[in-house]
């Protein structure tokens, strides 16, 4: 990142990549078929300051969830470095990493799949306490668990119930309690509200922002929903096909997007505030397959501004404002994407 942050970042990601390989089978070796590789995350760098909410936005398949999991080493990064509070997380041994997990947590998207159906709320939420020896006695563990369960808006009476006895919103609260019980400093929120109804979504967003303030947390907030990111994050990174194409303070990026992909993303969001008044940028075509990403700038197959150079040369990130970077060949021509006729 070219912009020097005011405070030292709590978490910094440098050149992080995650490549999945399909194992070559015997038949592939015999026929000489090359191994297929998916570059889910490609050379991503950014930093998150203490107390900040970093939004990470992109469409499905862009690698945002993989990035979140690679940071926590739930999916082992292929290359690059993650530094957390001065410690190189990527260099830790398995045991050291297990201890580190107390400080770095994750909240999942699916409130149904993320809770073990055979265990009670007390067991689910109390698990980190026993794993990290954070409670001396079972009674103390229960007290801590009860306190955190109340903090996320559930009742102590719920402790001995099973996940299937709760609604989606309540289950998401259980998942949040589990992530918070060990008092972590940093949490990856992986689409925590995407599976919820609008009114419940608002409850959870409110809860997450309140908890962040009270407990001094730092979030990497992954979402495909620009409104959610716009509402709660301080800075935002926009991802496309495994790469961060634009990054900066959320007001700047969303009100003055510089990358053509961010521009089209912004214009595609339907809003209740000003229906029909929005100039619409129509993107044609679908996301290219990550198995065979296009050469040059990965966005050129759908970009209305693409020229010859975009087809051959990948753009590098450039500073376009205070703490605002974007990766596009045509940044300095001060163009914006041609607008389609309003519908």
């Amino acid at each position, binding site marked *: 990142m070219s912009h020097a942050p005011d405070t030292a970042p709590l978490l910094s990601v440098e050149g992080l990549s995650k490549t999945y390989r399909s194992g070559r089978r015997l038949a592939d070796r015999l026929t000489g078929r090359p191994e297929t590789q998916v570059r889910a995350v490609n050379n991503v760098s950014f930093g998150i300051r203490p107390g900040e909410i970093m939004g990470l936005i992109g469409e499905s398949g862009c690698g945002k969830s993989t990035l979140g999991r690679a940071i926590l080493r739930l999916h082992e990064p292929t290359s690059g470095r993650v530094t957390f509070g001065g410690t190189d997380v990527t260099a830790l041994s398995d045991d050291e990493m297990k201890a580190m997990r107390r400080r770095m947590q994750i909240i999942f998207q699916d409130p149904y799949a993320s809770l073990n159906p055979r265990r009670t709320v007390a067991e689910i939420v109390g698990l980190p306490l026993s794993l990290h020896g954070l409670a001396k006695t079972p009674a103390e563990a229960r007290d801590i668990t009860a306190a955190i369960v109340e903090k996320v808006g559930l009742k102590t009476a719920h402790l001995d119930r099973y996940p299937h006895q709760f609604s989606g919103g309540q289950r998401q609260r259980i998942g949040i309690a589990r992530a918070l019980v060990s008092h972590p400093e940093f949490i990856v929120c992986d689409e925590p509200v995407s599976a919820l*109804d*609008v*009114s419940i979504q608002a409850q959870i*967003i409110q809860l997450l922002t309140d908890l962040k303030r009270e407990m001094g947390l730092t979030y990497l907030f992954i979402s495909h929903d620009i*409104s959610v990111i716009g509402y*709660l994050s301080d800075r935002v990174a926009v991802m496309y096909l495994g790469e961060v194409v634009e990054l900066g303070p959320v007001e700047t990026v969303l009100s003055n997007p510089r990358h053509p992909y961010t521009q089209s993303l912004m*214009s595609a969001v*339907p809003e209740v505030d000003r*229906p029909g008044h929005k100039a619409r940028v129509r993107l044609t075509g679908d996301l290219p397959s990550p198995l065979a990403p296009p050469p040059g700038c990965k966005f050129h197959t759908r970009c209305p501004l693409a020229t010859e150079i975009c087809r051959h040369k990948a753009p590098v990130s450039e500073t376009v404002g205070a703490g605002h970077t974007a990766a596009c060949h045509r940044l300095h021509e001060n163009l914006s994407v041609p607008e389609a006729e309003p519908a």
Partner: protein
Amino acid sequence: MNMQNDDTLLQVQGLRTVFETRAGTVCAVDGVDVAVRRGECLGVVGESGSGKSVTFGSVMGLVRRPGRIDAGRILFEGRDLRALTPRQMRAIRGRDIAMTMQDALTALNPALTVGEQLAEVLEAHDEELPRGRAARRRAIRDRAVEMLGLVGIPSPGTRLRQYPHEFSGGMRQRIMIAIALASKPKLLIADEPTTALDVTIQAQVLELISDIRAELGMSVVLITHDLGVVAEHCDRVMVMYAGQVVEQGPTAEVIGQPKHPYTKGLLGSIPRLALRGEKIHPIEGQVPELIDLPAQCRFYSRCRERGVECLQSIAMQDAGPGRQARCIRLNPETVS
């Protein structure tokens, strides 16, 4: 609103659809009235369990055991669909009314090519097809290519021979729309057509539906949980909560000046860049279980404006020209 308006294509009156479960009878749709006019786009908004999908599943005759339609009339161009035989209903379904499902992958038959699935619909519903077998087959193929082209699928001739899994999510949704539109229906019911899709693809699909509506002059019912989608694409909107319609009227007015506390709450729950730093106001609590509901406003337990007068069955109240809302406080004198 004039109920006998010639302009009305679909008229649903007092629809009640129930599901028998071990815990009791779940009243998924309770006394719903809907009117869809020719050529208009009606948005139906509600959260999961609000009964929005079941309402239109009932219209399509798609409610299966343990569910059943308990009461109500469903008039399509004046004919009561509930009085039709299954055979007559099949003829209407697909030809006059078509429905697209949220999940295009499971709604399409994985074992048939896209062309075969389109041909099936065309074969069954297109009376303009020529008589000779060869000519007929050619005509069907041409129509299928035309339909895929219409929904914006590149090189439709070759893609006709591909199977659903060879298409992306957005493409599959388009194919389902193409299949739904193949018989040139008078009414298209689109059930969450874009929920599974990314925003940029969502914008493409919604604009496609709008374009085709204008071109074919059909009516569209757009079932969604996204008020933004309704704001941009629908003429009128109907908000559902716990099996009932709680508010309906012209989109701009309902969104600009919501009358029902639930609609207000929904609008207030949407996080926006413009609201940064401000608190959003979530609707607290949860949707009630639809079993043995007490005779009171269904939104009572979550309502910020509730009072003792809300503890009775609430009927729809007039709330301005072409607008209604199910809130007693709009018109305290009325007692249902």
